[in-house]
């Protein structure tokens, strides 16, 4: 059912990647994404893929799970590949029919793009697989907090994101539960015209909204009871610290970046 969705799912673990400082992971993932776009040829891209494979291995996340993160964008990948094959016409022509020209150049570009997109998705999934959503928002807040003039709004937004993320699974669970309950009363969600099916959702969404509002009030009261009044003067329970392996991670990324840049210079062509 709805439970099977895996957006930004977190897989608890104890690998080096899991234990890295979330701020460092965030920065490095960002850097990785930028460098992916700096790549100009297959050599530098290969270096990036190699780096990614290393990171995945260190994270101890099963390869199957990693591949699952690519599944939702499969259509986009196929689409990109087809467009690139059709619209790039340099290199030797392999196949020609009416307006369709397939050239070696097109195929190379398509493969290049596909690898690039997959690496992008895998890298960002690696971040969410190994870091809990709360830690990610926390890290975002800390990274942005030097912006003094908007410090409070940074805190508010981070708090809102944390709460929203925290309640996604709860809402999904609630949705499943109410759906089951209404089905038990004979609600028919599977058959009928579009309008009928939309109408059949009313008995599910009304209780869902009411429960959500109730929950929001309760949470607000609970926060006030614990004297929450925004970010001003708040100290942290959990301090984030940089460890040795965070530095190793940074050095690794810097080396990879340097490698990519030099490979770009040495090999000026795609292949």
């Amino acid at each position, binding site marked *: 059912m709805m439970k099977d969705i895996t957006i930004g799912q977190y897989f608890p673990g104890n690998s080096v990647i899991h234990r890295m400082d979330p701020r460092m992971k965030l920065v490095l993932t960002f850097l990785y994404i930028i460098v992916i776009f700096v790549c100009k040829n297959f050599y530098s891209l290969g270096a990036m893929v190699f780096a990614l494979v290393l990171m995945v291995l260190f994270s101890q996340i099963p390869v199957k799970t990693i591949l699952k993160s690519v599944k939702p964008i499969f259509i986009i990948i196929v689409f990109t590949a087809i467009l690139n094959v059709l619209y790039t016409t340099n290199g030797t022509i392999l196949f020609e029919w009416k307006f369709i020209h397939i050239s070696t150049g097109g195929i190379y570009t398509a493969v290049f793009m596909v690898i690039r997109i997959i690496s992008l998705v895998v890298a960002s999934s690696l971040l969410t697989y190994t870091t809990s959503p709360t830690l990610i928002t926390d890290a975002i807040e800390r990274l942005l907090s030097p912006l003094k003039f908007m410090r409070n709004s940074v805190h508010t937004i981070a708090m809102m994101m944390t709460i929203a993320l925290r309640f996604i699974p709860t809402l999904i669970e609630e949705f499943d539960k109410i759906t089951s309950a209404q089905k*038990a*009363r*004979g609600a028919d969600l599977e058959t009928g015209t579009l309008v009928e099916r939309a109408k059949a959702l009313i008995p599910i969404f009304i209780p869902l909204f009411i429960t959500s509002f109730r929950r929001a009030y309760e949470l607000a009261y609970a926060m006030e009871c614990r004297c929450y009044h925004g970010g001003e003067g708040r100290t942290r329970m959990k301090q984030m610290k940089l460890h040795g392996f965070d530095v190793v991670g940074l050095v690794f990324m810097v080396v990879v970046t340097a490698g990519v840049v030099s490979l770009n210079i040495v090999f000026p062509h795609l292949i």
Partner: protein
Amino acid sequence: MAILKTENLTYCYSTGTPFEVTALDNANIEIDDGELVAVIGHTGSGKSTLIQHFNGLLKPTSGKVLVDGKDIWESKASLREARFKVGLCFQYPEYQLFEETSYKDIAFGPKNMKLSEEEIDRRVRKAAEFVGVTDDMLERSPFDLSGGEKRRVAIAGVMAMEPKILILDEPTSGLDPKGRDKILGLIKEYRQETGSTVMIVSHSMEDVAKIATKVLVMNSSKVMSYDTVDETYKRADEIMQMGLDVPQITKIFMGLHEKGFPVRTNIYTVEQGIEEIKRIRGQVNGL
């Protein structure tokens, strides 16, 4: 003949993911027509998972569910039939209310059964009267009722479907002792009046002892036993080992037994306790 039967019923949540859990392991149950079955077991033992199979909300990973001797997953029609034959009322049913008035909410089930207007009206009024929902409450929004009243409206919503088997998941959770007794009384009365089979899930052995004819004990995804209340309480110590609480009166008699008094230990109501004390009075000095 058994009205409800399961054959090697097994169910796993999230199959094919790292989070796979077997919530129900090879359950074989046979429930006769007209029983009032209490399902007990501690948190996470698979009670809710089990009962959601009886009206086809969950599809067995393997095994069969038979209602009235018919496999409910045989066809679409048999599944729909099971939905109406087996009325299932979830835990905290008051959070499923959604209509403008309580009347409309109770009518939701019967309406889905495509009954005639008069029949719907008859059933709604009957169910409402049964659970003690007044005409005034029927016209009000269900959201303006108290928690206990909401709960009764929600239960009426399932009763109005007049199922042959009524199943309630923890109908008394979160209510005060008075509200609890009221709901339990209603359930007992409902069974006597309609002759339907009733099943309630509960954490409280005390509640169970008051009304049930049979007890189904679940422990870590398995059905441990299905027997009369008497027989079940003979093994009160085993039940306590599973982390369930037995009624206080049972604990007293278990204690007496341990101290060497010749008392039975399957005592679960105060009345039985009085009888037992009277019985041994002549035999023991100083009593």
